[in-house]
C-alpha cells in the first residue's frame, strides 16, 4: 500500500487550499526548521484517519476537544461577517495493491470540519464559532462495475480499519515523542503485545482450537462406532466412559489452565506496575533529596549573584567611572605638574635682582673696597654713595602671586596633585578587581545554569515516576504502604494461580497417560467383525496426529519470530551504529521476560545507555517488527513518523534513514534534522525518493510571525 498524496485546507498552520504533496514509493523526506508546520503535517495524516491528533502533554486529543483550534488562524482572522463558513479538510489518496486484485484500488479519504461564525467577538475565541461534527468520506472505484463508491460514517471507518488496522497503525504511524509510550522496554508485555498485534503467531492458537474440536468429536464418534463391533461391549463401554470422563476432565483442566494463564498474565502485569511503583517510591526520596539539595545550591548561587550583581555593581559602577576618567585625571596631573614647575620657577625668581642691580656678594665687595664698581667712583664709608650701595643689600622682589591667599590655594593644588598621583598608581588594581568580579559573576552564572539543568533532569525523573510508573509520589508513605499491601496481595494471588495452573497441568498429563492406557486396553478387545471399516477411527488418527503437532508448532513459531526480530533489528542497529562510535553493543530480547537489552558481544548487558541508545534500539525493533509483518501478513503499510531522530546525531540520522529506505515499500519521515543548506546535498542521495521543504511565511513583510498572518508553505524539491 502506498500513500499517493495529501491535500490540506485551512488545517492548523496551513492556510487556504493550495497545500498538496505527492509521494512516491521508497523514502519520502519532509523537512523544515522549528515551527514550520512539520508536526502539523503529521497531525493531518493522523487526523484524516483517526479523528484525533497527538498533543504534547495531553496525549491523543479528539476533534471535539480540539474545536476551532484545528482551523487555521489566518482564515479565522480574515472572516469579517456573521455566518462566515470556514472549511478545514485533509484528503489523502491511498493506492492499495494486493495479490487477489491485479489492478490496484485507489481510495480517496477525506475528513472535513466546518465552523460558522456566530458573533463578531475575538475570532480566536472558541465561543465565537459554531462547530459541526467532522465528516468522513471514503471514495473508490468499484472494480466490478467501475462505479464510484462513496462511503461515509461507519462504513467509511470500516474501510479505513481494513486499510490501516488500528492495532497495527500505532506501530507504523507514530511521533517520536510517543515512542516511549509505544515501546516501553521496562514493561515485559510490550513486545509480546506488539508481536501478537502484527504477526500471525496467534493464528496457531485458532488452528489448534479448530483441529482439537474436530479431533474430539471424531474420536468420540469413532469410539462409539467401534464399540458397536466390540466382542466385549460391556468392557468397551466401561473403558469408553472412563476415557470420556478423563477427556472431560482434561478439557476442563485445559480450559482452566488457559483462563488462569490469562488471569496470571493480568495479575503479573499488575504486579509489574506495583513493583514499578514501589521502585518509584524507593527512588522518589533520593530524587526528592537531590532536588532539595540542588534547590539549596541554586538559592545560594542566586544570592551570591544578587550580592555581586546588585550590591557590588554600585561600587564597581563608580570604579568603572573612575577607571573611565583615567586619561582625564592623568592629563590633569600632568597639567598640575606643569603648573607646579612653573610656580617653582617663579619662586626661584623671587630673589632675582633686576638686571641693573648687582647682587649682595658684589655689593659687599664694593662696600669692603669702598668703591662703586659700576661707575668706578669712590664710595667712602659713611658717604652717601656708600649708604646707597649698602641700601641695596638684602633687596628682594616679592611677586604678587605669592600672597598668603594664593599660597593657600597652591597648597590645596599640591594636595590634589598628590591624591591624583596615588589614584594613578591604583588604576591597575581597580582594573584587576573589576575583571576578577566579572569572572566570578560569570562563573556563578555558569554554576546557576548547571544547577538549573540538574533541576530540570530531576524534575523530569520525578515526572517520569508519575507518568511512566503511574504513581503519585506526593502521597509518600501513605502511597508506599498501600502499594506494599497491593504487592503482598498480588504476590499471594500469583503464587496461588501458579500452584493451581501447575496442578491442572499435572492432571492433564495424568489424564493423557490414563487415556493412553485405557485406549491400549480398548484396542486389545476383539471385534466381532474385523472387516468392518470404521471411517471415524481412520479420520481420528489424522486429527489426533495434527492436533498434537500444531500445539507444539505455536511455541516453536513464536520463538522463531523472536529470533527473526532480534536478528533483523540487529542488522539495522549495526548499520546505524557503524557510523556512530558512541553507540555500541547488540540488541537482545530476553526470552523469559521479553525485555529488550543492549548487550556486548559476550551477551553481558551494557549499562551505559543514553536516550539516543534507547531511541535507536526502539526504532530498530519497530522496523524489524513492521518489516516482518509486511512479510508475514502479505501486506505492506506505509511507515509514517514525525521527529524519530531528534535524539540522534547527523551521521546516525542519515544511517537510520538509509536503513528504513530499504525496509519499507514506502516511508514518510518528517524531520527537523536536515537544514536548508544541506538540502541540495541530500537531494542527490539515491535512497531518498522525494523531498519536501516546509517554511513559515507571511504576506506582510514583517520578520516577526504573527498568528493572524503567518502560514506554512510546502515546496516539493524532489519527486
Amino acid at each position, binding site marked *: 500500500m502506498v500513500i499517493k498524496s495529501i491535500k490540506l485546507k485551512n488545517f492548523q498552520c496551513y492556510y487556504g487550499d493550495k497545500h498538496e504533496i505527492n509521494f512516491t514509493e521508497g523514502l519520502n523526506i519532509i523537512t523544515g526548521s522549528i515551527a514550520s508546520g512539520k508536526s502539523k503535517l503529521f497531525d493531518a495524516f493522523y487526523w484524516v484517519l483517526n479523528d484525533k491528533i497527538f498533543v504534547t502533554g495531553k496525549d491523543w486529543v479528539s476533534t471535539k476537544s480540539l474545536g476551532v483550534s484545528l482551523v487555521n488562524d489566518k482564515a479565522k482572522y480574515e472572516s469579517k461577517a456573521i455566518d462566515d463558513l470556514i472549511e478545514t479538510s485533509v484528503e489523502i489518496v491511498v493506492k492499495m495493491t494486493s*495479490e487477489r486484485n491485479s489492478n490496484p484500488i485507489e481510495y480517496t479519504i477525506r475528513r472535513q470540519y466546518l465552523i460558522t461564525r456566530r458573533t463578531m467577538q475575538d475570532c480566536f475565541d472558541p465561543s465565537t464559532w459554531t462547530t459541526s461534527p467532522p465528516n468522513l468520506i471514503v471514495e473508490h472505484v468499484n472494480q466490478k462495475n467501475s462505479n464510484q463508491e462513496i462511503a461515509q460514517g461507519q462504513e467509511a471507518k470500516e474501510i479505513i480499519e481494513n486499510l490501516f488496522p488500528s492495532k497495527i497503525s500505532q506501530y507504523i504511524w507514530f511521533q517520536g515523542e510517543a515512542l516511549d509510550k509505544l515501546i516501553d522496554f521496562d514493561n515485559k508485555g510490550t513486545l509480546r503485545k506488539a508481536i501478537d498485534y502484527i504477526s500471525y503467531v496467534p493464528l*496457531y492458537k485458532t*488452528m489448534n482450537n*479448530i*483441529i482439537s*474440536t474436530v479431533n474430539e468429536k471424531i474420536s468420540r464418534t469413532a469410539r462409539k462406532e467401534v464399540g458397536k463391533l466390540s466382542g466385549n461391549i460391556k468392557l468397551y463401554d466401561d473403558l469408553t466412559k472412563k476415557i470420556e470422563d478423563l477427556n472431560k476432565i482434561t478439557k476442563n483442566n485445559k480450559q482452566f489452565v488457559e483462563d488462569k494463564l490469562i488471569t496470571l498474565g493480568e495479575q503479573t502485569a499488575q504486579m509489574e506496575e506495583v513493583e514499578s511503583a514501589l521502585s518509584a517510591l524507593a527512588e522518589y526520596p533520593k530524587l526528592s533529596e537531590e532536588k532539595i539539595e540542588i534547590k539549596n545550591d541554586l538559592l545560594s548561587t542566586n544570592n551570591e549573584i544578587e550580592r555581586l550583581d546588585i550590591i557590588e555593581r554600585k561600587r564597581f559602577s563608580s570604579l568603572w567611572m573612575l577607571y573611565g576618567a583615567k586619561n582625564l585625571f592623568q592629563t590633569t596631573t600632568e597639567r598640575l605638574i606643569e603648573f607646579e614647575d612653573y610656580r617653582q620657577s617663579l619662586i626661584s625668581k623671587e630673589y632675582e635682582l633686576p638686571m641693573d642691580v648687582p647682587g649682595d656678594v658684589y655689593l659687599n665687595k664694593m662696600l669692603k673696597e669702598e668703591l662703586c664698581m659700576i661707575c668706578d667712583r669712590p664710595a667712602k664709608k659713611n658717604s652717601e654713595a656708600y649708604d646707597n650701595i649698602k641700601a641695596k643689600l638684602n633687596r628682594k622682589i616679592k611677586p604678587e602671586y605669592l600672597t598668603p591667599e594664593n599660597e593657600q590655594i597652591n597648597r590645596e593644588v599640591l594636595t590634589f596633585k598628590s591624591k591624583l598621583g596615588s589614584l594613578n598608581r591604583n588604576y591597575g588594581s581597580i582594573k584587576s578587581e573589576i575583571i576578577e568580579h566579572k569572572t566570578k559573576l560569570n562563573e556563578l552564572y555558569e554554576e546557576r545554569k548547571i544547577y538549573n539543568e540538574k533541576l530540570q533532569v530531576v524534575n523530569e525523573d520525578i515526572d517520569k515516576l508519575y507518568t511512566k510508573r503511574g504513581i503519585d509520589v506526593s502521597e509518600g508513605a501513605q502511597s508506599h504502604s498501600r502499594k506494599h499491601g497491593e504487592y503482598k496481595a498480588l504476590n499471594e494471588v500469583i503464587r496461588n494461580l501458579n500452584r493451581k495452573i501447575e496442578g491442572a497441568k499435572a492432571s492433564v498429563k495424568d489424564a493423557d497417560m490414563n487415556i493412553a492406557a485405557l485406549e491400549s486396553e480398548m484396542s486389545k478387545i476383539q471385534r466381532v467383525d474385523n472387516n468392518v471399516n470404521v471411517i471415524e477411527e481412520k479420520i481420528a488418527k489424522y*486429527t489426533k*496426529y*495434527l492436533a498434537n503437532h500444531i500445539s507444539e508448532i505455536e511455541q516453536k513459531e513464536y520463538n522463531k519470530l523472536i529470533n527473526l526480530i532480534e536478528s533483523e533489528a540487529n542488522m539495522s542497529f549495526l548499520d546505524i551504529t557503524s557510523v556512530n562510535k558512541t553507540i555500541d553493543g547488540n540488541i537482545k530480547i530476553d526470552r523469559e521476560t521479553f525485555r529488550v537489552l543492549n548487550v556486548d558481544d559476550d551477551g553481558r548487558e551494557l549499562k551505559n545507555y543514553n536516550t539516543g541508545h534507547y531511541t535507536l534500539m526502539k526504532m530498530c525493533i519497530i522496523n524489524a517488527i513492521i518489516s516482518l509483518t509486511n512479510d508475514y501478513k502479505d501486506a505492506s503499510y506505509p511507515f509514517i513518523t514525525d521527529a524519530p531522530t531528534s535524539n540522534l546525531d547527523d551521521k546516525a540520522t542519515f544511517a537510520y534513514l538509509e536503513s528504513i529506505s530499504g525496509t519499507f515499500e514506502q516511508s514518510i519521515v518528517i524531520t527537523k534534522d536536515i537544514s536548508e543548506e544541506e538540502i541540495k546535498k541530500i537531494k542527490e542521495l539515491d535512497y531518498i525518493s522525494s523531498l519536501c521543504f516546509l517554511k513559515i511565511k507571511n504576506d506582510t513583510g514583517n520578520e516577526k510571525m504573527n498568528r493572524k498572518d503567518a502560514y506554512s508553505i510546502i515546496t516539493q524539491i524532489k519527486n
Partner: protein
Amino acid sequence: MKKLTINDRLFESITKATNDFSDTSLDKTTLQEISKKLVDYVIEVDSSHTQEANAARSLENDLYNKIR
C-alpha cells in the same frame, strides 16, 4: 520469486515442523490436504468471515469426504 502468503507460511510451518510428516505412517498426501484446508479455515476465522465452531464443522465434512 513469488512472495509467500500467510497461507503458504502457515502451511510451510506445519510441514517443516513434522519434517514432511516423516514421523508418521499416515498418508502424507492426505495430511497435506487436511493441513491446507485447516490453514484456509484459520485465515477465514482471522478475517472474521467464519467462526471457529463453523470452521471445525466444515473441516470435519472435508475429512469425511477425503478419508474413506
